[in-house]
Structures are given as C-alpha cells and as structure tokens.
C-alpha cells in the first residue's frame, strides 16, 4: 500500500534498531512512556519491541480515550437513552462494550434502548436531520484529536438550525493527564513518546514544561512502526547527549503551533470543566471540556436530567495503576482471568488501544520472540 508500506520497512527498522542499540548506555535501564493509546496499539500490532534492546521498557500511558471514561458516565448516558422518549444515542463502535455499573451500551441495546454506532459526529447530525421526530444524542469522547470534529458538528448544527440534536460531552485534555502521571510518586520515567494526533491540534509548545521543569525528553511521534522506532532513537540520542528537549518526529503532520482553526472551533463550542473524573486516575482539575454557554441548546447535560452517577471502580480492577504505568497489565489481579476482552471489568481491556487489551491480544508473542526466532529459523 503506497504511503503506508514505506513506514513499515523492516530494512529501515534494522538500521534504527542498530542506532538505538549503539547509543544505549550499558547497564542502564530505560523507562519511556508512550502517552497515546494509538502508539500502544501500533507497538503491539507490529511487534516494535522486537527491535529494542532489553534495557528499554515501554510503559503505556493514559492516552486511550475509551479507557479513561468512568463507569458513571456510561450509566448517565444509558439513563438518558432509556428514559427519554424517541431518543437515539449514537457513539463510536469501541464504546459499545465499555462496562458501566448497569452493563454496557450493547446490553442497554439488548434491553431495548436505541443505540447506534456512527463513524463521525457528522453522521449523528445527519441522523438527526433524517429523523426530525426523534432526538439524536452523540456521546462524544476523545482527547484534543477528536474534539475538533465534535466542535465543527456543533457549529454546523447551530448554523443549520437543527433542534433535535445534542452532544453528551466527555472530551478530555492531555496535559493535565500527563501532569497527574508525573505527580504520581510510584513511577520514574526517563522520557515521553509524545502523542502525535493530539499534537496536530495543540502543537508542540504545550509540552515545553516537561523538558524545562521536569528535565525529561519528549519526542512527538507518528503512528507507523518506523515513526515509533525513530522517536525512540531520538530519545536515546537526547539522553546520551544529556539533553532534555521537545522534539517533533511527526513533522510531516504536526506543526509547532498546532491547528489554529481547530483550536478556534474548540474554543467557540466548549469550555473547560472545573473538574472531571477519570477512570482510575480520580478527579483531575481542568482536565475536560463541556459544551459552551453559546451552544447550551446542544448540551445533553443541560437538556436532559442527568443522574450524575458516581460508580466506584470495581475493587479488583487496577486500571488506575495500569493507566499511570505503575503496574504492567499482567500484574493486575484480574488480568486475563476475570477481566478479558470479551468480559472486561476495566476499560483498559475494552478498547484495542487499551494497554490490557493490546497486551492480552499481542503481548505474549513479544516475550516469546527469542525462543520463536530460534525455532522458526532452524
């Protein structure tokens, strides 16, 4: 596939692997956190770890949009979908299986609620236009990556005078999550692999405090396996040179100032929440967005009565520790036994970007790589 295969070339990967191996300090153990769930998925999907020396450990970060949704926010939306007449709840496909306190959207649909999968918030708006006698609510999730598409949809809905459409807003912001990770005393990181798609929107400047105040390198990376290897090589170079800088490996897409048009659309339609509860991480100040006053008519939380359900994470579930990178997925008490991709207890096991699901599906292969190489090549 043109423009894709170029970024998956094993020959180039071997060159990068050699460069990394040469610059790794003997006897030193490195912990790099890939903030973004998309990176976690790519690392497992392509076996990126197979090219890294044992000394480099990749720690999975909090940047999986599905994983950070607290159970109560699923129950709130389910309650609206089940109590409001003529309601169609729309969401992205990977949200359907996220467990709430009263089951998932898939379960709610089996009980009779009208819940449909859309590929874009604009599809949800179109559904509202096509069904004037129904109300269509879009369950918005994601970091700054997806917030602009929700913002543009809100602007379109307002411009077109659509009255039967609303957004249940769960957009979150990445910087407070990174701050929360760094505040956690149990984790010592050597560097960050920065989130590529979030950075297309917010740019590179919001990370400057990480290199300046925390003295940690951060390299914003793309999502192809070679992008990841190159960004790790750039990090290892920084550490070997004694530098701590914000670097941009994903320059083909990410600009220093991000995307001003997208940022304006977000600022027009959304405002920061004082607090937002994150799955496993607890309440984090100014870490999420709500629909702005100007778009109040499209705010599901203003239009409908929201129970405001607070559900404590199940006791056995250690998603918080996994999201913070303190525990490896398999160190969680219920990993792979009570909590599996088909019967997830925690959100990390639901999304293909979740650390636990990625690890469950792909992980063992990475650990067996040495034995496997011997076997298949003899």
């Amino acid at each position, binding site marked *: 596939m043109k423009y894709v295969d170029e970024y998956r070339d094993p020959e180039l990967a071997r060159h990068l692997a050699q460069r990394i191996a040469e610059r790794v300090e003997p006897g030193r153990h490195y912990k790099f956190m890939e903030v973004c769930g998309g990176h976690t998925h790519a690392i*497992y999907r392509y076996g990126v*770890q197979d090219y890294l020396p044992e000394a480099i450990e990749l720690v999975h970060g909090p940047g999986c949009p599905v994983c950070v949704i607290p159970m109560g926010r699923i129950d709130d939306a389910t309650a609206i979908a089940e109590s409001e007449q003529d309601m169609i709840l729309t969401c992205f496909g990977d949200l359907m299986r996220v467990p709430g306190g009263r089951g998932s959207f898939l379960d709610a649909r089996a009980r009779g609620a009208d819940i449909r999968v859309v590929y874009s918030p604009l599809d949800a708006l179109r559904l509202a236009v096509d069904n004037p006698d129904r109300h269509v609510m879009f369950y918005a999730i994601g970091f700054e990556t997806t917030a602009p598409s929700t913002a543009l949809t809100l602007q379109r809905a307002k411009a077109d005078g659509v009255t039967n459409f609303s957004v249940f807003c769960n957009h979150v912001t990445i910087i407070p999550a990174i701050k929360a990770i760094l505040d956690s005393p149990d984790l010592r990181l050597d560097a960050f692999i920065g989130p590529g798609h979030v950075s297309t929107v917010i740019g590179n400047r919001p990370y400057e405090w990480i290199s300046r105040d925390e003295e940690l390198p951060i390299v914003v990376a793309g999502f192809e396996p070679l992008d990841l290897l190159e960004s790790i090589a750039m990090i290892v170079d920084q550490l070997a040179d004694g530098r701590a800088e914000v670097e941009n490996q994903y320059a083909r897409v990410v600009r220093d100032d991000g995307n001003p048009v997208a940022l304006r659309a977000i600022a027009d339609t959304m405002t920061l929440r004082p607090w937002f509860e994150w799955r496993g991480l607890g309440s984090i100040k100014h870490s999420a967005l709500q629909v702005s006053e100007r778009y109040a008519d499209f705010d599901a939380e203003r239009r409908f009565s929201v129970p405001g359900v607070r559900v404590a994470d199940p006791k056995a579930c250690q998603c918080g520790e996994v999201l913070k990178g303190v525990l490896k997925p398999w160190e969680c008490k219920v990993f792979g036994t009570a909590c599996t*991709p088909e019967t997830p207890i925690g959100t990390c096991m639901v999304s293909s970007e979740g650390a636990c699901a990625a690890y469950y599906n792909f992980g063992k292969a990475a650990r067996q790589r040495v034995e496997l190489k011997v076997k298949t090549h003899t």
Partner: protein
Amino acid sequence: MTDRDIEERVEARIEQRRRAAQRFSDERVTMAHGAGGKASRKLVEGVFVPAFANPALVTLGDAGIIEIAGAPVAMTTDAFVVTPICFPGGSIGELAVNGTVNDLAVSGARPLAITASFILEEGVTADVVRAEAAAMAAAAAAAGVSVVAGDTKVVERGKADQMYVTTTGIGVLDARAQLDATTVRPGDRVIVSGRIGDHGVAIMLARGGLEIEADVISDTAPVWPAVDALLDACGASVRWMRDATRGGVATVLNELALAAEVGIVLDEHAVPVQPAVGAACELLGIDPLYVANEGRFVVVVAADAVDAALAAMRSVTVGDGAAVVGDVVADPPGRVLGRTTFGGHRMIDMLVGDPLPRIC
C-alpha cells in the same frame, strides 16, 4: 518469585481459562453473540452443545458426520440475514447456497442436495423474492446441487428485514478425505485458498455511510472444485480444512490451534489481500484477518505435499489465488502468532466484539 515467574503463572491461568468449557452467563443475547468470535462460542458451547449433546455435534466442525446405510454423510445448516440483501458480487440467495455447500466441501463431502426455508417480511416486493429465487437456482446449478425441499413463512412488517434464508445441505463424505484436526502436527503448512477480506469489505461498502469508494466484489463462490482438485492431488496429506467465514482467517486458525494442540505462525506478508481491501481496512482500523469471507477456505497440508496442493488449488478458478501463509509449530500450543510485515511478532487471537454485524 521473579517477575518472569509471576508472568508465567498469569499466562498459565489465562491458558486454562481459554481452554475451559465455555459458559453462557450473559443476561441477554447481544449482537456480539452473532459475530462468530468468542461470544458466539460461549453461546453455542454454553447453551446449544450441552442441550443437544451427541458425538456428531461435539467436534463443532462445519458439518456433522452421520452414517446412513453404512455410508458416512455430512449434514449442515446455515441461516442468512445479510444486509443489504444485494451487494457487489452476490446477494442473499447466492450466499445461502454457497455458505452451505462450502461447509460440506471443507468437511470433505461433495455437496448433493440442499433445502431452503424463507422468512419473508410483509410488504417485500415480489421482484425481490423472484430475483433471490433465481439467484439461488443459478448458484445451486453452479454448485451442482438440487434444492429438494423448502418452506416459506411471512412475518409482520418490521419483524424481519425483507428476507432471511436458511439452507440445509447433505453430501457423501469423499473417500479421499482423511480430515481430522488431531492429525495436524508441527512442520505442516497452512494455505489460504485466495485473497481474503473481499466479502466483508464489499458488504461494508455496499451499506454506504462510510463514504469510501472502491470496487470490491464479494468472493462468494462454491469451493468444492478447489477441494476436489486438492483431494485428488494430495489425498490423506490434506489434514484439515475450514471455510473462513465470520471471524475470518484469524478465528478459524485459533480454533485449529486449540483443537490440534499446536501453535501456528502466520506470515503476514504472505497473506493475500487486494490493495483496495487492505486500504479500506486500514482506514477503518479493521484487520483483514478478522474479516468474513464466503468463498475462501484455510487448509493444512503435510509439508511434502505443499507444492502439489498449491498447484492443484490454483488449477481451478476458485483457488487460483491460493498461497502458503504459515507454519504449524509445537510451541506455544493453542496459540496463533503473526510475523508482522514490519519484521516483529504479535499474538493473533480470536475475534472479540463485532466489527460488522449481519455479514451473512
């Protein structure tokens, strides 16, 4: 205890859980139970297998094998609820014939006859019904089977989606076929009969709403000619076959790995996927290995028969894209691994969840 020991213990627990008899503990049936992956397995093994327990059913092959007057006969049944009912490369009627005759073919039985029952929604146009009857007749003729009995029911508007079709088929087990998952052993080779993912992607695009335009045509076709050629060329060296419908090639290989207690290593770069399908999957974040096929099967042959098997399959149209995609290994038993195009390794599990409902 070291980290490695703890990890090993966790892995052992997971393996135990994977192999344990499946229990159906959900309160209601959800769409996930129809996707052909893990949830489907729970429904089937947790409810239906214990209810109907008998030796023919328990292997959960594509067809049950029974004896009639001393002759081994393969029998199978399949329901079709695809939406939309017409799609590039086929329609529900054609699918209903091919799905059932293929289940017989990969069980090593030449398809002989099928039955068909129709659930029709009040208000469906006569043209639609006529067109599907014609499509079934043509598909049956192409597959060399007769439709020997049938039934029709009509339900109120909204209680079905235009039409659902169920077909049941029988065939006599071919004497050349010695298919048994337990004969699969390390060193054997894994072949797919052609490029994968076409059917699932064709349906996805035909549903519209994705705003992806590509000429992808369903692969629906009867596979018996390829099976016939294969059995002629390799006989007992053909160890096992299965058609890669719901859940795709990945799910089928996982079923084999569990049944045969072997590991399978798949070479991702060897898996034939046409560029349009690969690109559509890339855009949608779907792995072609999990996409449904309706005219493709996976076969395991002894290593020394692989060239003859490929030549035989490629000698007929339905098998002309056949390719060796992987190897059977001893370790890790019950697991499927992928050698990625990037040169790394990854785990390939059964399908979980539901990328696309009502695909067949």
